[in-house]
């Protein structure tokens, strides 16, 4: 790995962040939906993380710390784009399930009949409202625990679980719609 004008701090930073770099990019790609936006997001995230690197006291906290920065940068960027809706009220309302709806959830009717195409999975992810997408991305792409996600998203663990549940149900519905679901009940 070539480190231009390497300083001790830059080397330490590279060593610390290296193992999360691919997950950072993949998460950025799932959040933005575009490779060029994901690259910009990763670059800006790393730049901000490097500036604040001295504040990172515990190396074990590095993944949560850097993903929290990624999220912060992304949200700030989203706020500058009025044409992009972070989440609509309709999306939120649609994602609330009553206990009865939970029992009648699509668990019963949807088993992926065949391997969905890569684009379909990606589109299903991008259809999710941001509040659910970021939780699903952190869980599936970065593999964080609920507690770590709660730190990154700055919300209680229960909220993380709720967002994950709703996001996954919505994603299942989107995928099911595109895959002509089979009723296994």
């Amino acid at each position, binding site marked *: 790995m*070539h*480190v231009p*004008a390497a300083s001790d701090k830059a080397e330490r930073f590279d060593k610390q962040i290296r193992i999360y770099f691919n997950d950072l990019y993949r998460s950025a790609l799932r959040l933005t939906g575009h490779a060029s936006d994901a690259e910009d997001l990763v*670059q800006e995230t790393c730049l901000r993380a490097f500036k604040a690197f001295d504040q990172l006291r515990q190396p074990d906290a590095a993944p949560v710390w850097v993903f929290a920065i990624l999220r912060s940068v992304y949200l700030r960027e989203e706020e500058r784009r009025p044409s992009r809706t972070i989440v609509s009220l309709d999306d939120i309302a649609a994602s609330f399930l009553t206990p009865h709806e*939970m029992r009648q959830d699509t668990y019963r009717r949807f088993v992926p009949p065949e391997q969905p195409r890569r684009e379909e999975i990606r589109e299903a992810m991008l259809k999710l409202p941001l509040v659910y997408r970021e939780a699903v991305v952190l869980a599936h792409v970065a593999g964080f625990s609920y507690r770590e996600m709660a730190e990154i998203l700055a919300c209680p663990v229960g909220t993380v679980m709720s967002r994950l549940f709703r996001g*996954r149900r919505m994603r*299942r519905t989107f995928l099911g719609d595109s895959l002509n679901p089979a009723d296994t*009940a």
Partner: protein
Amino acid sequence: MTCEELLSVIDPYLDGELSAREVVQVHEHLVGCDHCRAALESEATLHSLLVANSAEDDPPPDLRNRVLDGIAATSAAPARFGSRRRHVPGGRALFMGAGLVAVLFVGLIAIQFGRRPDVPPFALEILAKHRLYAEGPSPGVDMMTADIPGLTTWLERRVGFPSRPPGPSGLPSVSSEDERHRWPMPRRRTSSMNGMGGHSRCSSRRLSRALDPKEQNASSTEWRSMRRGSQA
């Protein structure tokens, strides 16, 4: 575990967030429930599809180098910025003025917090807890220690006035090889500092009076001893 309960924990189960006991309960239910097993397999398939799909996207090979180039450029920037600042007219005076204001502010806060309150907060807390517990029917709160002088010193520092610990003559029957003593505190929860033997008890009425701002002239608490077990 019912089917409804299992459906509600499918996500935590697949995410590895359930306790070992809950995992066993899930497995026990799955053995006899085809419907829930199908639901779990369906969701697990979807999870693995997403993970596998995301793993296919590697960053461009040159992205890390671009990131590190940007970092290298940034780390050089502060020196240039610092050298320019020194030429700002009045900048040093402004900086020193801000520092002076900050020092004054911190000093005022320190003075404010350094003032000795009329009644130490810890003493008020003890009084409030005592009154709370004293009204209830639950058992007492005990403090046990092997180091009465140490605990007395600690207590005096916390409550802000001297206290007189029970002397050897006031102690109940304590075996010679074990001089540890238990100090009951007003009620409810039992906390042990170390061992137990005989115990001494602070007169709660006197303690309340001593902590009462109107009776601050009662500058010391009196401790009386009682035999272990006589509290009940």
